[in-house]
């Protein structure tokens, strides 16, 4: 019964999260690993179709619908969750493990949701579960950033729900399918997706919060939220011309910020917006080639961006630092991490034989074929730019550049293994893309490896590298500086509060005391969790055989219940 195809893929993750919360030590680690493996094996046996409908109030809900598009994201999220779990295996913080599994489960729930109400529920769950991965860092910055994150992403959910209700009013259905950008409902839903997709001016929740999370938390964060948004856009708004322009803007503006940003994980968030831009653009182009390219790129991005965040997480974990100005010379004592990071960097830069190449070029070719010459030029500019800031800057300033004097050891074995597996996948997909191509929504007749594509890409990349070398040697390259760069979030982090306090001192007082109260609440919750579930917590002490037997018995009982229900 447990292997029935009718079991929605999020269920194992939610059950797993519960079991992980009440177990400790090796048993917990085994459970963490088993959840994505068993879930993934289960999903391999699932065929496209609709599994069960239910009526809630007046709505016909389809909580579990499977087609080629959702299956691909389903496989992807299982792989991503597995890599993340391996990477975080040594972490002794119940909060993070539970939040990570619930978060991955919510992402799975969202991509298999067949109606807008179910989608809304998982959309909000994604925000609520993932914020704990940010708060788990337990710094004042992380607490504050977590609140901003929650407000913006819950707002996205509110827009989605309003859109769904208007849509129901207009059509009498809440089925989640192609919408097209017409009417109020579609616009509301478009905006909701746009926030999670980090559209320009709505992008700062991403750059603000991901770098504040824990070394392992950011890896999970980078894999799910934005990819669910890409999936939702691809289903509801393929071929929407506006997306071409939004996507192109997203590829271009963040790379400027990435060049001058000092926090290397924040550089990666800017480069993430750049990569999302390629996908959004592909969805906007809407041809079979472009959609395939966008989806394939989302698949690859989870792996190579996950790998890059893992390598930076490993650096942060081992040195406690992540600013470019504090790092350098780490290749001396972390050679394996260095090589794995370079594999990720080569993949995101779309070097031939690495994964980015086989998907990004599809979108570029599609843009040219559709006659969007200027868009193509802009994407080409962004491709050179991404090589510059993610391909060269990240490995260069972390592992080479000036010698920081830091001599950290390699990270723990599980971290190396997770990075190693991600790197192998990046190279495998990059050299043998046909397995991925077979999973794509449309049949692929695109040839990635022809002389024209390969030579053009190599010329672009190597001369970008030459430009970097020249700028660096001539001293023109801007140094890494301890600083903050103003972005759109200035409007709500500085301008609006400033206006508020200027207008009314009382309002300012209420505002700041409410903020303080909210932060205190979360702080005390986190302290509570840490005291009981942290490495030295009451529930983590010792492992008497008696309680081991007890938990095994409970597990067995639950298994039997699920089996016979």
């Amino acid at each position, binding site marked *: 019964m447990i292997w029935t195809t009718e079991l929605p893929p999020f269920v194992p993750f939610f059950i797993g999260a519960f079991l992980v919360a009440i177990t400790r030590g090796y048993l917990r680690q085994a459970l963490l690993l088993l959840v994505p493996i068993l879930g993934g094996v289960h999903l391999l046996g699932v065929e496209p179709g609709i599994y069960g409908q239910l009526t809630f109030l007046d709505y016909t809900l389809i909580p579990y619908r499977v087609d080629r598009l959702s299956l691909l994201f389903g496989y992807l999220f299982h792989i991503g969750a597995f890599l993340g779990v391996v990477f975080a295996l040594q972490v002794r913080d119940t909060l993070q493990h539970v939040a990570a599994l619930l978060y991955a489960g919510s992402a799975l729930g969202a991509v298999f949701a067949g109606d807008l109400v179910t989608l809304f529920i998982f959309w909000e769950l994604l925000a609520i579960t993932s914020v704990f991965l940010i708060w788990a860092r337990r710094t004042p910055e992380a607490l*504050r950033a977590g609140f901003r994150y929650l407000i913006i992403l819950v707002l996205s959910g509110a827009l989605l729900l309003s859109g769904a209700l208007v849509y129901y009013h207009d059509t009498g259905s809440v089925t989640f399918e192609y919408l097209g950008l017409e009417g109020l409902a579609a616009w509301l839903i478009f905006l909701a997706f746009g926030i999670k997709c980090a559209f320009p001016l709505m992008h700062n929740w991403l750059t603000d919060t991901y770098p504040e999370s824990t070394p392992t938390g950011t890896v999970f964060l980078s894999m799910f939220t934005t990819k669910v948004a890409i999936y939702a856009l691809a289903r509801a708004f393929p071929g929407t011309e506006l997306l071409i322009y939004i996507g192109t803007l997203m590829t271009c503006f963040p*790379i*400027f*910020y990435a*060049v*001058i940003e000092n926090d290397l994980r924040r550089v990666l968030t800017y480069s993430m917006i750049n990569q999302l831009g390629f996908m959004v653009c592909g969805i906007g182009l809407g041809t079979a080639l472009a959609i395939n390219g966008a989806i394939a790129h989302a698949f690859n991005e989870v792996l190579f961006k996950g790998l890059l965040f893992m390598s930076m997480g490993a650096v942060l974990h081992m040195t406690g630092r992540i600013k470019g100005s504090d790092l350098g*010379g780490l*290749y*001396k004592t972390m050679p394996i991490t260095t090589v794995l990071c370079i594999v990720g960097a080569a993949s995101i830069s779309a070097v031939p034989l690495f994964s980015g190449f086989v998907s990004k070029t599809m979108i570029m*070719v599609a843009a*040219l*074929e559709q006659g969007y*010459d200027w868009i*193509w*030029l802009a994407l*080409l*500019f962004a491709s*050179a*730019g991404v090589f*510059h800031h993610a391909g060269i800057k990240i490995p260069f300033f972390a592992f*080479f550049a000036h010698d920081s004097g830091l*001599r950290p050891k390699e990270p723990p074995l599980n971290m190396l293994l997770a990075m190693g597996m991600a790197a192998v996948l990046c190279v495998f997909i990059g050299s043998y893309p046909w397995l991925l191509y077979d999973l794509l929504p449309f049949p692929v007749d695109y040839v990635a490896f*022809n*002389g*024209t594509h390969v*030579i*053009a*890409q*190599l*010329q*672009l*990349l*190597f*001369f*970008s*590298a*030459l*430009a*970097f*070398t*020249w*700028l660096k040697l001539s001293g*023109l*390259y*801007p140094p890494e*500086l*301890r*600083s*903050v*760069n*103003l*972005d759109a979030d200035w409007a709500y*982090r*500085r301008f609006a*509060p400033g206006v508020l306090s200027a207008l009314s001192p009382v309002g300012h007082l209420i505002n*700041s005391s409410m*903020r*303080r109260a909210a932060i205190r609440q979360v702080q005390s919750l986190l302290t509570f969790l840490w005291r009981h579930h942290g490495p030295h917590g009451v529930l983590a002490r010792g492992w008497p055989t008696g309680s081991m037997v007890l938990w095994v018995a409970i597990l067995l009982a639950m298994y039997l219940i699920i089996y016979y229900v």
Partner: protein
Amino acid sequence: MKRKRKTRQRQYFFDKPQNVKRVLRVLYAICGVLFLIDFVYHRHVVHPWEGLWGFHVIYGFVACVILVLAAKEMRKLLMRKEDYYDMDD
């Protein structure tokens, strides 16, 4: 104690300037070859701009220089101290 001194004095690959030079020379050589390929190899292009001689070579180089120099200028407008947002909230 002895071992400690040993690690401190250990020379790593890029500690030797000639190794840096070697890597740079390899980069220049590859760039040279890629530049010359345009004379020999006829690329099957979709768009006429792509087929222009040295198009990707020049575009890649110029794009990156513009990117970096423009970002450097952006700093004058956008850069603030690290504690800029640490207000009383």
